[in-house]
């Protein structure tokens, strides 16, 4: 557990030294979301309708940007090998790296989302649901993404390949995440969607680190 905490602290520290990477993903999210009203038109009713989907797709793509770097730097300088031979189970360390990745690339999206939501004329309660859905959904993206990042470690054309592998697996998160906000706006209540999202998150939090660990071992063989 200490080792896991150390990994999280270390990854966060490294990101703080190179802030541009986090900010790039964040600005990507902001810019992509702002492009949609320009392309579709400024009618508030229409924007309210597309807001959940647009913001969620934007968040999906933004969280993909940093994925490839999750293990790449450690792989390049040999840190990853040290993690594999350390006495701490690798799966804990991988979990730590996933948590760090979420803190860096998922949490900022959750925090900026209400501002973007206002651009789309969402009301305050819908913004709350949006944040809650993203809070449950973005860790899911980091967990599933970790499997893809581990599988494509050191592989030719890894970036494009990674999106091909991971995006289909993101679909449940997208459906329930955007669905929660949509259901709330249409007065159906978001409870069902949020519960399902939380259930998938619980499943993924247990299984995804194992799969990512297996993939890392294969990559390092």
């Amino acid at each position, binding site marked *: 557990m200490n080792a896991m905490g150390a990994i999280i602290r270390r990854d966060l520290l490294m990101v703080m030294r190179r802030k541009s990477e986090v900010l790039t993903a964040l600005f990507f999210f902001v810019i992509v979301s702002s492009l949609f009203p320009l392309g579709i038109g400024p009618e508030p009713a229409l924007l309210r309708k597309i807001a959940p989907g647009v913001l969620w797709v934007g968040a999906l793509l933004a969280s993909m940007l940093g994925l490839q770097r999750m293990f790449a730097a450690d792989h390049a300088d040999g840190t990853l090998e040290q993690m594999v031979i350390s006495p701490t189970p690798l799966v804990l360390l991988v979990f730590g790296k996933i948590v760090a990745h979420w803190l860096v690339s998922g949490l900022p999206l959750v925090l900026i989302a209400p501002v973007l939501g206002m651009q789309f004329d969402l009301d305050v309660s819908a913004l709350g649901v949006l944040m809650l859905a993203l809070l449950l959904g973005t860790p899911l993206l980091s967990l599933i993404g970790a*499997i893809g990042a581990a*599988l*494509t470690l050191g*592989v*030719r*054309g*890894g970036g494009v*390949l990674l999106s*091909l*592998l991971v*995006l*289909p*697996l993101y*679909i*449940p998160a997208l*459906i*329930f995440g955007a*669905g929660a906000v*949509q*259901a709330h706006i249409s007065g*159906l209540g978001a409870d069902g969607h949020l519960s*399902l999202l939380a259930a*998938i998150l619980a499943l993924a939090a247990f*299984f995804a680190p194992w*799969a990512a660990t*297996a*993939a890392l071992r*294969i*990559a390092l*063989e």
Partner: protein
Amino acid sequence: MSNRLINWFRFSSPHNFYPLAGKMIPVFWMLTALFGVAGLWMGFFVAPTDAQQGEGYRIIFIHVPASWMSMVIYMAMAAWAAVGLSLNARLSSMMAQALAPTGALMAFLSLWTGAFWGKPMWGTWWVWDARITSELILFFLYLGFMALQASIDDPRRADKAGAVLALVGAVNVPIIYYSVVWWNTLHQGSSINLTKSSMAVTMMWGMLLMALCLWMYSIAVALTRVRAIILEREAHTDWVKQLKEIKA
């Protein structure tokens, strides 16, 4: 006892499996032709014209079996991949690799014929219906599996990485399916309702025969492909160099 065990695993070695597959392929092609002719005859000449859908419905004789096969092949692929990963068996991983393109073909056929069926029946090439959408996602999963294997140079690493992906995909398929079903029912109040007329017995038979035809086709093609993979990967071994077809 130990002899028996050895016999049981005899064909898990590419060396022994290669000639066996060679003998099985013509049998499966013959069965493909047999079931195919029977199924098409049943579908085109015996099965009655549908009361509501006219002649166009006959596309289901290829559409439904192709959809079934796309799912069956994904399961078979994931199972072979799991065996290959857990027992470190080379041939099982090769089987998984050999099945993927056929599975992708089936998923594509299912979507394509579905579009041809949808245009006259529903008046549109595409609807975001739950089953169509999940079939599309299955197609994406096949593409991801093949792309991952193709981009890793070391075949053993490609096998294992592909196996992890296939297993993750297999766990995800039900989740994706149900999420799409619920998404669909929540968003599209009035989805297309197929008026379920009790299907004529002959239609059922035609579909079953065509399904068997596609099963046999898939096996024949997968075996042919696995033979090619064996040759490619074992090219450095003596037994491959001694094969008639290699020497010639």
